[in-house]
């Protein structure tokens, strides 16, 4: 297996294109495990660690945020982000353990597309735009459209995720990430990422996204609509939870049966919504 250390994105893209079935390696926290288990055997690895500028996180004056794909989970976890974007830092804080967050990158976590991972639902809740660069140039993909299936994304084999852009969060927006796991540092049994826009106690817009409940992050227009223009009363929240519950197709594994996961969805959705809402009441 060959290992390359490009310093520019163009160089990295060219290397990926030149080697059939080559892979990017970012923090290696999932890739190396896959190699060890014999699940992957790429002929070449293209490391992103030396690519200039890929680890930069920028907060713009208008509240929008741009982060390079190689920003570490630890860096995101320790960044204060405005409004609903707090869901991102909060999710990053709950990924694995410090040692893994220090290596693992935001881009790696998104591109790995593990349905049980923490960052994908959070980035869908925040309505992130992902920039992919390949031999034919750059394109932007909504986080929503990025996760196609279990460990499968919209990236082509020779494309690299370079940057993630977050639109400015609307005034009054709040976010929260609620993770339920067997033990600290485990993948989620079920997780809920929430972004709400509140105006005088009324929810004007909501994005509720579940992790570990389908092959990709699960968001439903109907569930979000059930919360919109309500005071987030328990009936509305229960309705949203029930809709998500009906659509969920969780895996069964050691973390819980599919039925169990489905059963706890409404209760966890209620907790996540409440955690976000409480934030709008707390003095900033």
């Amino acid at each position, binding site marked *: 297996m060959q290992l390359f250390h490009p310093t520019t994105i163009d160089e990295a893209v060219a290397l990926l294109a030149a080697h059939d079935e080559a892979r990017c390696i970012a923090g290696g926290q999932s890739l190396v495990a896959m190699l060890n288990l014999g699940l992957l055997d790429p002929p070449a690895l293209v490391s992103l660690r030396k690519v200039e500028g890929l680890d930069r996180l920028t907060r713009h004056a208008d509240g929008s945020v741009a982060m390079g794909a190689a920003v570490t989970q630890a860096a995101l976890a320790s960044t204060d982000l405005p409004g609903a974007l707090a869901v991102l830092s909060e999710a990053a804080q709950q990924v694995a353990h410090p040692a893994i967050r220090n290596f693992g990158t935001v881009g790696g976590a998104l591109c790995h597309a593990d349905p049980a991972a923490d960052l994908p639902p959070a980035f869908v809740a925040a309505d992130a735009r992902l920039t992919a660069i390949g031999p034919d140039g750059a394109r932007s993909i909504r986080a929503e459209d990025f996760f196609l299936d279990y460990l499968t994304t919209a990236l082509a084999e020779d494309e690299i995720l370079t940057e993630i852009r977050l639109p400015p969060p609307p005034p009054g927006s709040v976010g929260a990430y609620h993770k339920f796991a067997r*033990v600290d540092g485990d993948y989620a049994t079920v997780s809920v990422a929430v972004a709400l826009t509140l105006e005088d106690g009324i929810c004007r817009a909501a994005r509720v996204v579940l992790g570990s409940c389908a092959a990709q992050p699960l968001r439903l227009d109907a569930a979000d609509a059930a919360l919109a223009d309500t005071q987030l009363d328990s009936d509305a929240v229960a309705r949203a939870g029930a809709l998500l519950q009906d659509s969920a197709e969780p895996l069964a594994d*050691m973390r*819980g*049966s599919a039925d169990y996961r489905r*059963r*706890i969805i409404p*209760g966890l959705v209620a907790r996540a919504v409440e955690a976000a809402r409480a934030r709008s009441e707390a003095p900033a």
Partner: protein
Amino acid sequence: MKGLPEAIGARLPRRDAADKLAGAARYTDDLSRPGMLHAAILGSPWPSARILGIDTAAARALPGVRAVLTGADLPDRRWGLFVYDETPLAAGVVRYVGEPVAAVAAADLATARAAAALIEVDYEELTPVLSIEAALEDGAVPVHREFGSYEKRPDLGFERVNEIARQEFSEGDVEAAWADCDVIVEGVYQVPSQSHVYLEPVSAIAEFDRAGKLTVRSANQSVNKVQATLSRALDLPMSKIRVVTPAVGGAFGGKSGVTVQPLVAHLARVTGRPVKLTLTREEDFMAMRRRHPAVVRVRTGAKADGTLIARDLDIVYDGGAYAEDSPAVLGFGLLMARGPYAIPHCRLRGRAVYTNRLRAAGFRGYGNPQVTFATEAQIDELADRLGLDPVELRLKNAVEAGGRWIGGQTITSCGLRACLTEARDTSGWAGKRRDGGIGAGGKRRGVGVSAFAHICGLLGTSATVRLLEDGTAALAHSAVDLGQGAEAALAQICAGALDIDVDRVDSAPADSGAAPYNWSTGGSRVTYMVGRAVMQAADAVRQQIARHAAETFECAPGDIEIRPGGRAGIVGVPERELSFGEISLRAHYRTGGPIIGSGALVYDGEAFDYKEAVIRNYPFERVGTYVFGAHVVEVEVDTVTGKVEILRAWAAHDVGRAINPTSVEGQILGGFVQGAGYALLEEMLWEDGQPVNPSMMDYKVFGALDLPLDIHPIIVEEPEPSGPFGAKGIGEPPLVGAAPAIANAVAHATGLRLRTIPMTPERVLDALAAAAER
């Protein structure tokens, strides 16, 4: 009473702590030997199959491969503790998924693993026995067709196919006693297979010198057991085998017998080179050992005033594919099944059976956690029915010093009452008990208690103490330090017995070539048993010191006293004294020879009383010196997820005397945490005989962030007359009491009695849902 020597009760840091913190401690896998080869194994994919043929040609052809071994290449020399049923590699048939079938030694690890993957095995699948019920049903397939021909210890008591052992401890007349009971509770309890999950996976390095002597370096719990088993497996006299112990990264019973040492020794023999084998975490999960899962049927009856009258208990332990410790685990479980209560009528019976799953073996608690989970639940069920406080009910029936254990032995020291009252009073039990079921945000709180016992006296051990030329001491024993601090505790006992500073006592990691015999670091016995041998040895040294001093001062040895700090002098004459150094020089260079003391004993407590009790097939006539504890645990049950969170715990343990209170507290905390995992989280699972979760990804253990800092160890000191400075054991009991206290707290919080552990969120939620439907 004379005060205790300074070394006793001192919170001294471990000698190995600095090295471990700095990453400088050397474990077996850190070591290398000149010319060393690396080994890899190939495990069975089937729970039960006949090996029709093994094609090793491709593996042998791989450059760098030095040897490929299969069961057919090895002599038919089986080993075991009670049934000689084990071989280094499967011999003709495989009996569990992961059982080593072939092994490779090669120049490097990658080559060894690649070669192992090239070995082709032709299997004929057989019908596996995958549960206790399947093992015992009529017409069950025997897991060992050859069982009848195996060499084995007499009186195992097995009756049916797949039974390894059948035992009983009974007293009184249970059938007649039910009529005297006002309340009877009855239940079936199921306990899981827990993995030892020591931090250091199994590893061994073996090498032969040119004189044919074998040296094996490995993590182990007894150099002497490993040496004896290697002797049998390799047909070598023990004088030709040296077993050395590098730093050990935990064991918990999982390394108490041989692990891979015989296999590695065979590879070293055929290659003529040192060979190392370290199992991957997955291989270790699949091919080593685990706690016996069990089904426990119990019935307990009491008078309206809470007096316990009768208990009938029947337990079946799943021993897995090889007998290992099963007969002893079974019997010890039964010995604990009356609990620490004076119940006059008891019938306690059990069996251990073979199945086509990983072998089960000793694991912190040794059959006791299984039984005590069930019996301590029943005490609470009785309290509930009788409207009595669970602590009061326990206090009312608690055994006391001078009372009898089941089997007739006298209890020589007993701090059970103090444990119960201390745990009750420091926890604020009464208030928490009143507030059961209360909570906010879908959570309900509860508090539960358990009381329990264990032993610390069994089998044989020895130690020597030598006085070095400068008057410091060299202590030698074979109590392997597993990380729990045995080495430090024994050094403190030696320092205490000689009344010198502990820094003036040297000791070394267990080495069969350098130190005298010890049965094992197990059974919570090291501080008590090896400590007694150290006391004897130190005492012999003191006598020789006194004799030298008496000769020098021309007085009677009886007029000599040993003074703190390593001096001997005439009683009442402070200025007439010699240092140990002066005495030792005299002994080394002038008269008498170097001062050496030795101690040796086999457990010498009272034997069981075979006239008073029905005791069938228990393999020992005496084990004992009972230790006691009580836990109070406060939990919060999340009714949304079913997750049980431990909020606080109070763990009181009667250790006789805390030689090193910091180490005792460490054992209490660690045992409680491992017991909490047993109660709430840990379970090895199989589907159709295939392990489902043999990795740290799928099999979780609690870490520092999962449990509260609010776990309070409470040390109760009720000195044991026979113990070193009154000390007893502490290694296992803290695990034993955790699960029942947690289950009792869950019952208090929810009103639901969960009789199956682990109480996973899913199980708890199911129980809550079922209750809501009723």
